[in-house]
């Protein structure tokens, strides 16, 4: 985490900030979701509390906090309370592994009468060498929260919902895991940093000795792996139990799925978990297929930004902060657009039937992902990219 106490402290605070950022995004997203759905369905949505209904969030929070607290009679209290807490963990832990901008350089400074630094602070929670595997591994822990909730409630509907949700999640985890093999083949790395760095600049690749350059397109993974990107995004929808894959909730037959017995703040934590999944999925999609924090305009590279910052008269520390913030903005915009896409899809598409859902996962997406892998490998071998 760091070499001395201050660096450890900075990193710790950074982690907390990233987590809080994720938590804070949720009320905003809830608002966007409600307003967005209203917009799509041609109604008004929350508009009474505060301007544009923005303060609705605050009112909701207060309402959640004052809900009455009890454990269902047949429930297992420990699991009942553990489940919402644990719902928070995988999303945040996985999200922290994804780089959001270039690192910050901190000059030497004085604190407590001692000189500290210089430090290089990564614009991510922590850099993991095998980041892709790490994120997949941590995300796969999300199933437990659902299973614990389903079991801990002591209700057959919630248990059934939990089983359906987890069966769905693991089914789509196959397609998810397989759809990124193509990206791994192209990059030969599990490291998000390296994968993002490879997507810098204009679209350029070597095909059987010919170098092809498309100056107006960025060198993003989505252009190399369109099928992989599509499958990945679809699997992300299923992984976060969003419509059109929200079979776990199934209002008609399961009344709300695994969190039927939950209310108040515990329910909110589940919401945070679900949005956390969306955020992790989106940012992983960005990192693998949409060039990470790089701008969609091939001309604006981090080097160019650094050059501008130097021109503006910043020192090394200032340059790094300037660059990182601008790049973070790029990342943030992509994330926001993708999250909007999630919401948009949710209110546009109807729900699948459960057998259709399983068929899609096992019989459509898995074979396509396999085909994608094989074709990618053969093309790489032939063209020796």
């Amino acid at each position: 985490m760091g070499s001395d106490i201050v660096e450890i402290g900075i990193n710790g605070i950074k982690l907390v900030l990233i987590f809080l950022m994720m938590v804070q995004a949720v009320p905003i997203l809830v608002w966007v979701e409600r307003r967005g759905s209203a917009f799509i369905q041609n109604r008004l949505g929350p508009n009474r509390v505060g301007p544009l209904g923005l303060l609705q969030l605050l009112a909701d929070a207060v309402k959640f906090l004052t809900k009455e607290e009890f454990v269902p009679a047949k429930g297992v209290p420990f699991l009942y309370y553990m489940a919402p807490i644990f719902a928070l963990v995988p999303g945040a832990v996985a999200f922290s592994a994804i780089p959001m901008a270039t690192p910050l350089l901190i000059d030497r400074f004085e604190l407590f009468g001692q000189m500290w630094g210089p430090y290089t602070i990564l614009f991510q929670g922590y850099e993991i060498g095998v980041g892709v595997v790490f994120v997949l591994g941590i995300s796969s822990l999300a199933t437990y929260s659902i299973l614990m909730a389903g079991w801990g409630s002591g209700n057959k509907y919630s248990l059934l919902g939990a089983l359906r949700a987890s069966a769905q999640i693991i089914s789509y985890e196959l397609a998810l895991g397989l759809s990124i093999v193509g990206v791994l083949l192209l990059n030969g790395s599990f490291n998000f940093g390296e994968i993002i760095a490879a997507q810098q600049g204009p679209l350029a690749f070597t095909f059987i000795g010919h170098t092809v350059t498309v100056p107006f397109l960025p060198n993003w993974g989505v252009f190399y792996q369109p099928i992989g990107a599509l499958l990945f995004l679809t699997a992300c929808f299923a992984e976060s139990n969003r419509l059109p894959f929200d079979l776990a909730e199934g209002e008609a037959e399961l009344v709300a799925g695994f969190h039927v017995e939950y209310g108040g703040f515990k329910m909110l934590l589940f919401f945070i978990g679900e949005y956390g999944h969306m955020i992790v999925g989106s940012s992983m999609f960005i990192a693998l297929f949409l060039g990470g924090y790089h701008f969609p305009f091939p001309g604006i590279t981090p080097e160019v930004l650094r050059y501008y910052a130097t021109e503006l008269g910043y020192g090394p520390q200032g340059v790094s902060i300037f660059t990182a913030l601008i790049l973070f903005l790029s990342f943030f915009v992509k994330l926001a657009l993708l999250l909007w896409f999630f919401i948009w899809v949710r209110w546009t598409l109807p729900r699948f039937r459960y057998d259709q859902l399983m068929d899609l996962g096992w019989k459509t997406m898995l074979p396509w992902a396999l085909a994608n892998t094989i074709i990618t490998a053969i093309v790489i071998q032939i063209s020796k990219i």
Partner: protein
Amino acid sequence: MTTDAFLFWFLALVTFISALGVVVFANPIFSALSLVMTMVTVAALFATLNAFFLAGVQLIVYAGAVMVLFVMVLMLFDLHKEKKAFTQGAFSGSVKLLLGGLLAGLIVGAVSMSKELYKAISDQAVTNSATGIESTKALGQLLFTQYIFSFEVLGILLLVIAIGVVALARSKGGTHVK
């Protein structure tokens, strides 16, 4: 006490406690969740040993797949806290406990009395790379050259198991239908 040492002792403690939990929890579901915890801490221990890829695989395969299966089956079977979770028989029980203790004691004693193995060569080793990419690549190279036969055989084994499991799940249970 360095960070490494702190991490190790912390993880060792959590691993021990959760492993103990697997054995002593009367409710199988708690046992299973305890085992999940053990798996996660063992993954962390792998990471302290610079086997990052294996740590990830441990999370995906064990924590994310195998234990999900266990928990799912336990929930499907609707198994609650068992009144008699342990086998009866005070004598054999104590013998078994003694055996377990003896085994652990013997190994721990033997290890603690032995000298540090491999201390000299551990510095320049390939497994010591910080990011784990090199060791993962070396693992892949090895897997596809020296262990290629085992690899392919494993593929076939998995196929056989997939077929067998479907057959088992289909069976109405037992060959002697009365």
